[in-house]
């Protein structure tokens, strides 16, 4: 092998070693529990079984899976609908102002995830800011139950992952040759048709990247549903958490985790393929 071919591999070695030692190996260990039986007093009884996977398919748990997917999908759609206009506005701002606007978009990331999520409890509870606000506007009925609803969970998830989507969409928008939009206008398309026929199709890879990201992070999330859903709206993440820490059923928790990871890998893989396909269609027009 030539020097030039080996060097990139060597450069990647520390990162790969780190991931193997602290991510892949522990994950494989935990996931391997899925093939064993639960010990009588918790722990693992090393007898091979596929029963845990059969339980994952149980309607009770399948429903939680589907419910999580629905919540994650709703979160994703809302996040994209909010992020796209924001990313578009940032990419159209003067060049020098764009980094500042992006800085503000990712600012929430700099505070602790828990604190950000607790902040929503303060906002949404029965004596919270939102209820106080609508009361001050003349509303006299019972305070609204905003907290511990599915809406609260979705709001929290959208809020937490929005910056990812803005960044992903912004990165494709900012790489788009502005002359493509001008060409569309020149050929007789107004701003709206230009958006649907040119801008949006060419930025779909960014939308897909941001969307898959939010979906994957949302479907496995357990903190937000626990805090804002009040434990009443169980998602897969909570279920896994419960199996490991409450029910002490590690093998079943591992099987659930495996199903979750498999879903994520399939989605990420599909998204990577779609992006590679789209960029293979020559987005280098800007050069």
């Amino acid at each position, binding site marked *: 092998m030539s020097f030039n071919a080996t060097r990139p591999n060597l450069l990647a070695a520390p990162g790969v070693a780190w991931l193997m030692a602290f991510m892949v190996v522990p994950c494989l260990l935990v996931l391997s529990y899925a093939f064993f039986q639960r010990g009588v007093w918790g722990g693992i009884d090393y007898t091979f079984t596929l029963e845990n996977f059969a339980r994952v398919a149980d309607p009770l748990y399948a429903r939680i899976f589907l419910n999580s997917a629905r919540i994650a999908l709703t979160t994703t759609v809302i996040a994209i609908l909010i992020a796209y206009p924001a990313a578009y506005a940032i990419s159209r701002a003067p060049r020098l102002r764009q980094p500042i606007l992006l800085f503000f978009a990712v600012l929430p990331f700099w505070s602790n995830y828990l604190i950000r999520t607790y902040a929503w409890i303060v906002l949404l509870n029965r004596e919270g800011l939102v209820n106080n606000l609508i009361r001050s506007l003349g509303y006299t009925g019972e305070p609204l139950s905003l907290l511990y609803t599915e809406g609260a969970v979705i709001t929290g998830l959208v809020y937490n992952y929005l910056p990812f989507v803005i960044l992903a969409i912004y990165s494709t928008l900012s790489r788009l040759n502005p*002359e493509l939009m*001008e060409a569309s206008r020149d050929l007789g398309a107004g701003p709206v048709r230009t958006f649907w026929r040119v801008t949006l199709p*060419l930025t779909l890879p960014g939308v897909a990247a941001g969307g898959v990201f939010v979906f994957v992070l949302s479907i496995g999330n357990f903190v937000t549903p626990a805090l804002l859903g009040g434990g009443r709206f169980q998602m897969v993440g909570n279920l896994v958490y419960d199996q490991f820490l409450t029910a002490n059923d590690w093998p079943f928790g591992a099987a659930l985790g495996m199903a979750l990871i498999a879903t994520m890998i399939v989605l990420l893989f599909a998204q990577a393929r779609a992006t590679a396909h789209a960029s293979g269609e020559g987005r280098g027009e800007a050069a």
Partner: protein
Amino acid sequence: MNAETSPILRIESVAKSFGPVTAVDGVSIDVRENEFFALLGPSGCGKTTLLRMLAGFETPNAGRILLDGRDISPLPPEKRPLNLMFQSYALFPHMSVRQNLAYGLEMERLEKAEIRRRVDETLSTTDLTQFADRKPDQLSGGQKQRVALARALVKRPKVLLLDEPLGALDKKLREKMQLELKRMQHEAGITFVIVTHDQEEALVMADRMAILKDGRLLQVGTPEAIYERPADRFVANFIGVMNFIDGRVGEGGLFEAEGLRLALADAGPGPATLAIRPENVALGALGEGLAGTIADIAYHGLDRVLHVKTAASPVPLQIRVPVSGTATHQVGDALSLRIDPARCRLFAGAAA
């Protein structure tokens, strides 16, 4: 048709500034119907801004743009019956060649069959039929350029604007495409307005051209007129090769420089610069005319360019002599230059 009196495109005292920078400074140009018109100037002269104002991507701060007598300056780009061929070509990467061409016609909401017919027709006149189903990134530079042109032509615009259309092509292909563009302009019967910084390109292609510098219009005319009678020192230097000799005109119209005296008609007294093309300098017998020695010889195939050091100019003068001539020149040879006053231009004022 009375092309002389009815311009298809009239640019009337158009001005545009970006903050403190004046990009276009009160330019007026008439473009005639079916003419190949070039906007020529160095980078930053305002030619691209002017073109973008014609297309509708910039709004003039002052002045009007009339197309067929109608002021189009308030219209957005999609409402203007003219099309722009972009320097980057700006082909839609997610659409095939055919879809790129059809796009503009779909926006006019034409019948599907009509769109197909016109796209097919344009594909065939631009030699693109075999590439119809390819995506832009499967095309060579020259093919992309043709698609960009076809996409604009299929709209049958009243005026086609071209922004440095050949800039991205290599020299050989560029020369081929220059003639190709001229042929297509002729066949389509459409007025072309092309922006270029390449004076050779403008000379070859344009019926008439406008020279711009620092946002101002310096001269409009046919390539011959501008080459033969440049309006000022800048135009003289920008178009083709020009020798300059700084000197002064004395009483009686006698131009004097070191080692050179030349009687010129209608020359006012004062400092002045004499300009003469390399092909207009003749070699004379030693002892008469301007004496010099050859500093360099550049072979150009059909002719040679001698760089001759003289007392009259700090820069060696360039003299074009045919290769077929019997005279053999060598670096260091002394020779004498005869300058025909009738073929010179005289620019009054001290050299900049």
